[in-house]
């Protein structure tokens, strides 16, 4: 009797079933084709229709662009006699150098390569995992790199200040690479190696002090090394091609985000004057065509600056494009800010974070992450929109491409250069889009 009751009241012990690996279904290539392309009558019909259409569209293009194309000829007439139905790539190849560098002197084009090379070298450490303080590297890059690049691109007598900043930039780059090497071998930055010797003098500030001292040392070294070197002056009028396009769009892409963030925060601010100013800027710039903004920048902007200031066309255009891109970016960022739940502000406030800390530590990281696709879309369209500067006479890649058709040897060669620069633009834009998708995936894994 007793035994029976204990047996009844005793509960069964629950043990979860062991996990099984998921079932993998594979049909091979034939199976995949059957399932996805030829499953059923309508599906098959659709597949065949689409492929036929693709063939009808692509075949003539390939005939023109590859099969009947002429790759080397002295002028367009020769192209036409060899193959009247084919593309005349010879003209594009002849002008290719100008498409990339504009009218920059052939012998000095290594300076353009060097300038962009330095930019790439500067950006590379940002991809390293073990290096800390990437924000500082990024900000230093944004502030110093334009001076370094301008020094190399322009050449000529640039004045003491520009020379100093140029050397400062180079010094930062050198220190950056010493740090990269040290972090991977010793696990320490150069300034961290020395700061304990400086501690008796500077106390808590020794880390900053050692960084400044090392920077000063390398800068002086650079100043000494490059003191006699003077590059030949190349006026901005000779800049052009892809080179110019990348300068304008690179500059405005970098500046668009900070400007956009500031305008978006201004628009949401509780301070009326700041809010009105932001709204006015955003709405005014957004409701005017970009070409108008560009024209106004060239004709009207000089009125707002003192006469003594020598504004060149490129600077005016860059300022205009930055403001234009910033206003658009502001609305993108504002969309991101609105997607953040109010609870995040409450939580940040209740911990005691102030406005800027809340924004930069809590809200913006989340908002920008949510907005990556939109931000990159803006960047891509900005990159393409910069071709509009050809209208006010800057020899960017677009104007160079159209110039080919008025060259007396290649008179009337319209399509080929445009196809060529389309390919170039595609490579750049597709690269940006791929990078943004990689970035998204990387950030999403941490959720």
């Amino acid at each position, binding site marked *: 009797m007793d035994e029976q009751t204990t047996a009844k009241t005793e509960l069964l012990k629950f043990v979860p079933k062991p996990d099984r690996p998921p079932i993998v279904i594979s049909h091979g290539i034939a199976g995949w084709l059957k399932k996805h392309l030829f499953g059923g009558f309508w599906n098959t019909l659709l597949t065949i229709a689409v492929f036929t259409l693709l063939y009808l569209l692509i075949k003539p293009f390939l005939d023109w662009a590859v099969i009947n194309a002429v790759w080397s000829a002295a002028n367009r007439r020769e192209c036409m006699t060899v193959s009247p139905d084919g593309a005349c790539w010879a003209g594009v190849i002849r002008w290719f150098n100008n498409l990339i560098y504009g009218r920059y002197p052939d012998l000095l084009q290594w300076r353009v390569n060097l300038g962009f090379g330095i930019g790439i070298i500067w950006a590379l450490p940002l991809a390293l995992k073990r290096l800390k303080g990437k924000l500082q590297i990024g900000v230093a890059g944004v502030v110093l790199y334009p001076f370094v690049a301008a020094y190399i691109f322009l050449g000529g007598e640039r004045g003491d200040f520009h020379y100093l900043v140029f050397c400062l930039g180079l010094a930062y780059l050198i220190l950056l690479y010493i740090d990269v090497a040290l972090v991977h071998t010793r696990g320490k930055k150069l300034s961290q190696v020395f700061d304990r010797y400086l501690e008796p003098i500077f106390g808590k500030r020794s880390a900053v002090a050692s960084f400044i001292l090392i920077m000063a040392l390398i800068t002086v070294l650079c100043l000494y090394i490059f003191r006699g070197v003077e590059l030949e002056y190349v006026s901005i009028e000779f800049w052009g091609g892809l080179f110019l396009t990348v300068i304008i769009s690179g500059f405005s892409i970098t500046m668009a985000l900070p400007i956009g963030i500031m305008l978006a925060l201004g628009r949401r601010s509780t301070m009326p004057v700041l809010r009105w100013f932001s709204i006015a800027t955003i709405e005014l710039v957004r409701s005017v065509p970009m070409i108008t903004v560009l024209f106004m920048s060239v004709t009207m902007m000089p009125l707002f600056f003192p006469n003594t200031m020598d504004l060149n066309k490129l600077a005016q255009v860059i300022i205009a494009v930055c403001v234009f891109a910033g206003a658009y970016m502001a609305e993108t960022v504002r969309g991101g800010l609105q997607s953040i*739940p109010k*609870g*995040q502000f*409450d*939580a*940040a*406030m*209740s*911990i*005691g*974070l*102030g406005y800027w*800390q809340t924004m930069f*530590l*809590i809200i913006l*990281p*989340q908002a920008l*992450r949510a907005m990556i696709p939109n931000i990159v879309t803006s960047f891509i369209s900005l990159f393409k929109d910069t071709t509009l500067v050809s209208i006010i006479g800057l020899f960017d890649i677009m104007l160079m491409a159209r110039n080919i058709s008025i060259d007396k040897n290649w008179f009337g060669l319209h399509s080929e250069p445009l196809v060529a620069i389309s390919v170039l633009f595609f490579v750049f834009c597709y690269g940006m889009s791929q990078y943004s998708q990689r970035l998204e995936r990387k950030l999403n894994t*941490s*959720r």
Partner: protein
Amino acid sequence: MTIDMTETNNAEKAIPAVSAVEISGLNKWFDEFHVLKDIELSVSEKEIIVICGPSGSGKSTFIRCINHLETYQEGTISIFGQPLDNPKTAQGIIRDNVGMLFQSFNLFPHLTIIKNCTLGPIWLRRIPEAKAIEQSMALLDRVGIADLAEKFPGQISGGQQQRVAIARSLAMEPRIMLFDEPTSALDPEMIKEVLDVMVDLAESGMTMMCVTHEMQFAHEVADRVIFMTDGEIVEMGPPEQVLKNPKWDRTQQFLQHVLSHKS
């Protein structure tokens, strides 16, 4: 801020009777709608207050006012004798004294659990990172989830998230904790794990003001229970009195609803 703190500490030694939270004549309107009507309340240190009432009674708004998340049009709120009149100094007083928990946890989803906890200490109290991590790990251990430190909020359960939120608040070493329906968004099994931590906090001598519908918790832990409806404090007293022998019919009615739902 440090100067203010020492001043209050001295004042406390001289007059031990200074109340942790002192609210007088608090009135608040949302446009035309009168949310809070003449609220008077004095909470002494280490006291546990439970606030209950029907939805829309203004209890959440009330507790948010104490944390300066809501502005109010009339009345004064003082934390340890320091009035929150000036918005500039209020933020500092709140930061040094008051922590708050929310119904929807409000963890920062882009930061790991440990970074959620160390953010305040590192950026506001200027504690070195290594030390902040050590302190926060101790707090996470106290709420029983030290092993989740490297996870992201989206990867853990609601109950665990709320316990992280408690650890995050405690990392700022508050003397008063406010709770805005901390268990309302949780499954029954998780409610208990959060309540256990809250009971533990109460026993450690924290001053607590808690908006909740957990009558069991109120009964066991609260020193005083407040019943609010239509923006007024209707009833206030020891849990025995308010929960068992309420004075007003409205309280009786509310309690019947809550209790019948629970059973």
